[in-house]
């Protein structure tokens, strides 16, 4: 039984400079209502609701107490993952695959009620890492540093990735930041945590994204050309920095192998048309290329985003960083491209897309990676 995406909806996105802030669950309502209205569906037509909300950043314990009805789940089957929202989509997909349900809403909202770096100091064990003032950026910096050293990567190469992502953003009507950042802008920006410079680090914006997914027969009633979920995979690796490779994304590599084997993908560069990758830093984007086997180990810099290999048409995290809602934003962007509804940045031949999700509260290094493979 196939499961397909039939609609997407976005709230408006905000950064700290905008005062007209709504609550995160009001944004969930706006995004979901738009997704349902788009295909003339009512909340009563939906069987299950899955959100991705992380209590620490919502500033409320049990943060889905508020989103559950905002997404339409009043007296319905509803649940919450505390992960990147690709995993909420994956969970909803499993629920439909079980044969017990036909239609699901998947939603994720990001709030700006807290400073993310500050709050993330609590995600470490109180014994070893927390006393060292670790935060989610320091974990990323350790990986970036390790990657640079292992493969002698110059920072200009990382800056090029930022330039490429932001160039895409300048054409994407839905990207939050549309200003192109050049290599020299990046190199001139200050170090935040060496080797990460300010313009390498995505800034969190608030907003919400919703998807509606359905089993085959129902999907076709609401959308002539649903975008099918061909496969999903996710892996998590261990906590201690000393116990694993820091210059390679093993969990993502394992997820990619699983999907490639199942879907007979021999040459991902050729077999997949679009890639939406979670560029938490440009160094990570290079590591993602390598884990996805788009190139050899240490050669991530060789990958160039062009017409034959489209990467982050959305503009990447650097342009629209919705923290745990980022994964759904990327899936939604791929859906619009594949449905020929992307607008200004529409590309030809978008038959198959790979979306990479990364759980951002991921311990001392990026522990959990997920993949959603979409096809027409």
């Amino acid at each position, binding site marked *: 039984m196939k499961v397909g995406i039939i609609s997407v909806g976005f709230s408006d996105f905000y950064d700290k400079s905008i005062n007209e802030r709504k609550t995160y669950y009001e944004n969930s309502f706006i995004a979901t209502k738009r997704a349902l209205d788009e295909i003339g569906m009512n909340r009563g037509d939906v069987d299950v609701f899955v959100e991705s909300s*992380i209590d*620490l950043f919502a500033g409320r*314990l*049990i943060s*889905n107490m*508020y989103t559950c*009805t905002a997404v339409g789940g009043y007296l319905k089957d509803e649940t919450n993952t505390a992960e990147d929202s690709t995993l909420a989509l994956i969970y909803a997909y499993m629920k439909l695959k079980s044969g017990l349900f036909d239609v699901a809403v998947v939603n994720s909202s990001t709030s700006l009620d807290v400073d993310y770096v500050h709050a993330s100091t609590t995600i470490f064990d109180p014994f070893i890492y927390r006393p060292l003032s670790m935060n989610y950026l320091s974990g990323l910096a350790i990986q970036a540093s390790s990657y640079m050293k292992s493969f002698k990567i110059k920072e200009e190469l990382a800056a090029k990735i930022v330039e490429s992502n932001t160039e895409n953003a300048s054409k994407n009507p839905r990207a939050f930041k549309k200003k192109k950042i050049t290599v020299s802008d990046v190199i001139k920006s200050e170090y935040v945590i060496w080797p990460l410079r300010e313009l390498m680090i995505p800034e969190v914006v608030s907003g919400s994204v919703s998807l509606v997914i359905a089993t085959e027969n129902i999907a076709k009633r609401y959308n002539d050309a649903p975008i099918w979920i061909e496969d999903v995979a996710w892996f998590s690796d261990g*906590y201690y920095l000393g116990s694993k490779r820091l210059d390679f994304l093993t969990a993502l590599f394992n997820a990619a192998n699983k999907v490639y084997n199942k879907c007979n993908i021999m040459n991902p560069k050729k077999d997949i048309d679009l890639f939406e990758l979670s560029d938490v830093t440009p160094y990570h984007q290079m590591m993602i290329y390598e884990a996805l086997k788009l190139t050899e180990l240490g050669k991530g810099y060789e990958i160039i985003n062009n017409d034959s290999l489209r990467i982050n048409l959305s503009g990447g995290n650097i342009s629209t960083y919705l923290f745990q809602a980022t994964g759904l934003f990327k899936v939604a962007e791929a859906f619009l491209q594949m449905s020929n509804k992307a607008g200004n940045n529409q590309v030809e031949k978008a038959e198959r897309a790979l979306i990479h999700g990364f*759980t951002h509260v*991921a311990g001392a290094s990026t522990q959990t990676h997920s993949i959603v493979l979409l096809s027409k």
Partner: protein
Amino acid sequence: MDKVAIIGVGLTKTGRRNDVSHQELAFEAIKTALKNCELDIDDIDAVVYGTMDNFDGISSPERFDSIALGCGRGRGKPMMKITTGGTTGMSLALTAYYHVASGLYDTVLAIGVQKVSENVEAQQVLNTAVDPILDKTFGLGAIHAAAFQASRYRSTYKSNIEDYMCNVAIINRKNALRNPFAHLKLNITDDDYYSSPYLVWPLRLLDSCPSSDGAVAVIFASSKVAKRLSENPAWIKGLGYISDSYWWGTKPIEFWDNLAILAKRVFKMAKISNPFKEINVAELYNAFTIQEIMEYEAIGLAKKGQGWKLLDEGITCFHGSLPVCPSGGVLSTNPIAASGLIRVAEAALQVMGKAEGRQIDGVKNAIAHAWGGALQFHGLMVLSNE
């Protein structure tokens, strides 16, 4: 759709567990569950993990605990973190079920870990759940919400409901004496109950659950694997979850109608037409005494406003015709995010005939329940020996 079963359970000692870290407590539960069904961590395809982070003072402790989940070896594991408040444990069971029922995985481990004793005051943590702009200032926590239920039930249905709450308090603590994994094991009398102080009127100290540390691991399997590995697995016949409004005024307070709606759905799936007759044992989420009585009614074991009658007739005590919480329930042991999964584990042990000192004779069907949020979430599961 393929059937899904529970093939193994690992419970830990509960109470104040300052002898172990979060990670070690998770390891203890997992190791026990694996041993009980003669599996190795490498046989586990995927892991579903739950904690309500704030109680333990580690945000996203699944990262710290990941090495206990087997993520640190070999290929690592597909691991998914679920947080839904008091229902978290039940949500883990449901999530593990869907991992298998979807056909994606054959053997899935659900693990709930919580160290409630590591915060200074659980109600202070619970107070961070309620609306921070309107409700937080009133000091509302879980006990306050349950007190509203007791107060309204008292005024609406039964002015001496306190006498029945006393019954529930005593029965559960007595049952816990049979359970080596229970936290509070109290042999209490009516006098003890009535001399116990009011915390939030009309709830007394003995109406309330303790703050416990504890973990539980439950292994779910496809029918193919279950039949190969287990002689008498606990089959999942029905399951479901319901979410209601956060807002206090949107839900009736004296009757848990959201649970009543869910129970109808789940019993229909499980093909149970008369729950009172067909269910042999129930593990209900009784964080507060009044809730057990309200759960009888919502689940359809008693009429609305008449749940207390089951206590008059001794039906729900250990030797009654429908024992409720032979484990001692949440009233005896409450490691919050694990508690819902403990209900599932206990129900599975009853069905498998492995509940030892707390085993009820001749269990064919058992149910497990959990509630969470602002009296707004419920999960329910029916387990059966066939």
